[in-house]
C-alpha cells in the first residue's frame, strides 16, 4: 500500500512537471539534514509534504525557495534553474511587517511607483483590495496588518504570493493557527489558485487535510524521502505508520484514528467541581459559565476571535474580569496577577510558547529551575544539585529529547519545546491546568506524548481546560466539550466515538449562526 507510485497525472487539472528537485542534500555541521531527496511538483497540483518534526521538511522548502543553498543536487522550474520569484513561501513564522498596511505588505519589494520613485498608494490599495476580495477577505487595504487576526494575516500572505505571480506556492503549516471555518476559506482559495495552474506544496501535520486537499503526498523522515504516492492510493493508517516509521498496528489507537472509542470516564470522583466559572465577562467574551471536576479534561470549541484565549487568561489572572465569579474548590478567587494564580495552583500554558512560555536562548535546566525555584530554594540561593536531579527526572518522565539538560531550548524540536513548557508545571499543587492550543506545530508522534502528559496531570487530580482550533485534538484529548461563542457557552457534551471533528465543527457552526441571529435582532 505504501509503495511509491509512478507519477501518473490522471487528474484533469494536473499538467506537466513544474518543479523538479533532484538529489538534494544538505549538511549542517557534518550531519545530513537532507540526503539525496528527489521531489517534483506538477502545475495545478497540491503536493503534501509530511514528516515528523526535525525530519527536514523546513530545510527542504527553504532549499526549494532558495532561502538556503543546497550542498548537492539541483532545483529546476520548467526545466531551467529556479529563478528568484518562481517560488513563494508562506512560512510558519509569518513574514509580514506588523506596522505596515495590507497593501504595503502585499507590494513590499514590488512597489508601484512613478518615475521619481514615489509610491502610487491609491493604485496599490485598489489592486490589494481586488486581490484580498478574491480570497474572500473583507478588509480595508489601508488597515495595518497588526490589527488583523492570524487567519487574515495568512490570507494576506497568500495574496502577496499570488500578486508576485509565483509559479509555486509553498504553504508551511498554514492551518496550525486557523479555526475550521477559516481553514475552509483557505482551502477554497487554494483550489482557486490551483485552477490557475500554480503548483502548491503543502506542509502539514494534520493528516485529515492531506486527504481533503492534496493530490499527491511525499513523506520525509530523518532527512530522506521515504514515500511519494497518490493520495487516492493511501489510507490514513498506512500514512501514519510511514510518518512515524512504525508498523500500522504499533501505532497507538489514538493516532488520528477515528474508529477509536473513548469511554466516558465512569470512575469520575464524586467530589465538587475544582473549577467553577459563572457568568464571567471580560475582554471579548461575556456571560460565560463552565465547570471542571478534578481529574477531568474539558475542551472548549470556538472560533478564533471569540475570546477563548482571553477567557483562559482571565481565569489565570493575566486579565481582569469585568463581571462574574471564578471559584476554585468552592472558594471565590480574584487573582490580581499570574503569580497569585500560580501560587493558588492555577497554571496557564500559553498559546505562544515562544513569547510567553520559555526563554528560548536559555537551557532546559535554566528554564525549569526558574519555574521550580520555590522547591529548589536554599535560603536566597538555588540548590543546584537538587535542581539537576529534579530536571533530570522531568526530562526522563516526559521523554524530552535533547543532547543534554544544558542544551538551549531553541535547539529542540517544536514538540520537545512544548514538553519543556509542560515540565514547568509538573509540580505539586497544580490544581487547574489551562492549555491554549497545546500541540500547535507539533508532529503526530510528539502530540501523542503530550497527550500522555496531559493525562498524567488529570490522573493526579488536576482539572484541565483545553482550548484548541484542532477539533480532532479536542475529540482525542477531552472527556467533554463546551461550545463557545463570544456571548454564549453551551452545556458540556461528553465526548463519544460518535463525536467526530466534523460533528464538533457543525455543532459549533450552528451556535455561531444562532448567536449572530440573536445579535442582529
Amino acid at each position: 500500500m505504501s509503495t511509491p507510485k509512478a507519477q501518473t497525472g490522471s487528474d484533469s487539472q494536473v499538467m506537466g512537471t513544474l518543479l523538479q528537485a533532484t538529489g538534494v542534500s544538505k549538511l549542517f555541521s557534518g550531519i545530513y539534514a537532507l540526503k539525496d531527496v528527489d521531489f517534483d511538483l506538477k502545475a495545478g497540483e497540491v503536493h503534501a509534504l509530511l514528516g515528523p518534526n526535525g525530519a527536514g521538511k523546513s530545510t527542504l522548502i527553504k532549499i526549494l525557495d532558495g532561502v538556503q543553498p543546497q550542498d548537492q543536487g539541483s532545483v529546476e522550474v520548467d526545466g531551467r534553474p529556479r529563478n528568484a520569484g518562481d517560488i513563494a513561501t508562506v512560512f510558519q513564522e509569518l513574514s509580514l511587517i506588523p506596522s505596515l498596511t495590507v497593501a504595503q505588505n502585499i507590494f513590499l519589494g514590488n512597489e508601484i511607483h512613478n518615475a521619481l520613485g514615489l509610491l502610487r498608494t491609491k493604485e496599490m490599495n485598489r489592486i490589494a483590495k481586488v486581490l484580498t476580495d478574491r480570497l474572500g477577505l473583507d478588509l480595508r487595504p489601508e488597515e495595518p496588518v497588526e490589527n488583523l487576526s492570524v487567519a487574515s494575516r495568512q490570507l494576506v500572505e497568500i495574496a502577496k504570493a499570488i500578486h508576485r505571480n509565483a509559479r509555486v506556492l509553498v504553504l508551511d503549516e498554514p492551518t496550525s493557527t486557523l479555526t475550521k471555518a477559516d481553514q475552509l476559506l483557505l482551502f477554497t482559495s487554494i483550489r482557486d489558485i490551483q485552477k490557475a495552474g500554480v503548483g502548491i506544496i503543502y506542509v502539514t501535520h494534520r493528516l485529515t487535510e492531506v486527504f481533503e486537499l492534496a493530490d499527491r503526498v511525499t513523506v520525509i523522515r530523518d532527512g530522506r524521502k521515504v514515500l511519494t504516492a497518490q493520495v487516492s492510493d493511501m489510507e490514513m493508517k498506512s500514512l501514519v505508520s510511514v510518518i512515524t516509521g512504525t508498523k500500522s498496528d504499533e501505532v497507538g489507537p489514538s493516532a488520528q484514528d477515528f474508529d477509536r472509542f473513548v469511554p466516558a470516564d465512569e470512575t469520575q470522583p464524586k467530589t465538587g467541581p475544582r473549577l467553577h466559572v459563572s457568568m464571567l465577562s471580560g475582554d471579548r467574551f461575556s456571560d460565560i459559565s463552565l465547570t471542571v471536576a478534578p481529574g477531568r479534561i474539558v475542551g472548549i470549541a470556538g472560533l478564533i476571535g471569540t475570546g477563548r484565549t482571553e477567557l483562559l487568561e482571565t481565569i489565570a489572572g493575566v486579565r481582569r474580569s469585568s463581571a462574574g465569579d471564578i471559584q476554585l474548590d468552592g472558594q471565590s478567587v480574584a487573582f490580581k496577577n499570574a503569580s497569585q494564580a500560580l501560587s493558588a495552583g492555577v497554571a496557564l500554558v500559553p498559546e505562544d510558547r515562544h513569547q510567553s512560555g520559555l526563554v528560548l536562548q536559555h537551557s532546559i535546566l535554566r528554564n525549569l529551575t526558574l519555574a521550580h525555584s520555590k522547591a529548589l530554594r536554599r535560603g536566597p540561593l538555588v540548590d543546584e544539585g537538587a535542581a539537576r536531579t529534579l530536571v533530570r527526572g522531568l526530562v526522563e518522565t516526559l521523554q524530552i529529547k535533547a543532547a543534554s539538560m544544558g542544551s538551549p531550548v531553541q535547539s529542540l524540536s517544536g514538540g520537545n519545546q512544548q514538553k519543556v513548557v509542560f515540565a514547568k508545571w509538573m509540580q505539586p499543587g497544580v490544581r487547574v491546568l489551562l492549555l491554549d492550543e497545546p500541540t500547535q506545530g507539533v508532529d503526530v508522534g510528539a502530540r501523542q506524548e503530550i497527550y500522555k502528559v496531559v493525562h498524567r496531570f488529570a490522573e493526579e487530580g488536576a482539572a484541565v481546560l483545553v482550548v484548541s482550533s484542532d477539533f480532532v485534538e479536542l475529540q482525542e484529548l477531552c472527556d467533554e466539550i463546551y461550545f463557545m461563542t463570544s456571548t454564549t457557552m453551551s452545556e458540556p457534551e461528553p465526548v463519544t466515538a460518535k463525536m467526530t471533528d466534523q460533528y464538533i465543527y457543525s455543532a459549533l457552526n450552528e451556535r455561531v449562526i444562532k448567536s449572530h441571529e440573536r445579535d442582529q435582532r
Partner: protein
Amino acid sequence: MNAISASAVTKPRFGGRSGGDFIREYFVYIALAALIVFFAFASPYFMTTQNLANIGRQTATVSIVAVGMAFVIINAQIDLSVGSVFALCGMASALVMQHVVNFWLLGALAAIAVGVVFGFLNGLVTVKLGVPSFLVTLGMLGVARGIALLITDTKPVLISNPAYFQIFGESTFLGLPIAVIWTLVIVAIGVVVLHKSIFGLRVFATGGNPQAARFTGVNTQRTIILSFVITGALVGLASLLFTGIAHAARPDLGSGLELDVIAAVILGGVSLFGGRGTIIGVLAGSLIIGIMNNGLVLMGVSSSVQQIIKGIIIIAAVSLSKKR
C-alpha cells in the same frame, strides 16, 4: 458559512480606539501646545517676534538632525555619534575655506562629505560586522570628537566668508530666518522620502520585521546604511547653520546633541523598537526640545537644572512610547 468566517477573520484585534490611545497618538502635539501656553504666561518676552525667530534658529540644528535620526530609529537602529560628527563637520568646512579655497560651496560640501563618510562607516560596520549600532556609534562618538580636537590641537577655526554667512546664517527669506527655511525644506523632503517613496516603505519594513523584509526581497543592509548616510549628510548641513551664525567652528561643539535629537525623535512618536513614526511628529518633538531650551533660559532656570528636566522628559517620553 462565508459570512461567519468573514466576520471572524476581519474582526479587529481590539475594539474601538480608547481615549488613552488618542492621547498617546497626539501626545506630542498636545504637549507642544501646552508648553507654548505655559511659557507664554511664564515669560512676557517668550511670544515676541524676536524670541520666536530665535527659537526657530536654535531649533534648526535639532530638527534637521532629527529628520535623519527618524530614519535610523525607524530602522530599529540608533546613532549616538551625531554630536561629535557635528563638530567635525564644522571643523571641516572652516578648515577647507581657510586653507584651500574660501568658497562657500566648497566649505558646505566638505562638511556634508564628512557627515556622509561617518554615516556610511556607522552603517557599514553595523550591518557587515553585525555590531549593534548602539556600540558602533558610541565608538564613533569618541573617534569623531578625537579627530576634531586633534586637527587644530583644540583651537577654534575662524570663518570669513560673507556669502556663507548669508546662505547658512544671517539672511531672512519671506521674513523667516534662513535656518527656519532650511528646516522647512528638509522636513518637506523628509516627509516625501519617508512616507511617499519606496525607500521610506522599506525603512518601515526593515525596522518592523527585518527577517520578513529580507524574505520579501528588501535589501535591508542597504536600507540601514542609507539611513545612516542620510543622517550624516543632515548633520553636515546642520553644522553649516551653526557655523554660519557663529562665524567660527569649535572642536567641542555639539556635545550632548545626540541626547536632544533622540529625545525629539522619541517624543515625536517614533518607536525606539523600530517600524513606526512620522516626520511631522518628529518636527513637533524637536520644537518641544527647542522651546524648552529657550523657555527655561528665559525663566532663569540654571543650566544644571535644565539638564535634569530634560533627562526626566526623555525617560517619560520613552515610557510612553513603549505602550504605543
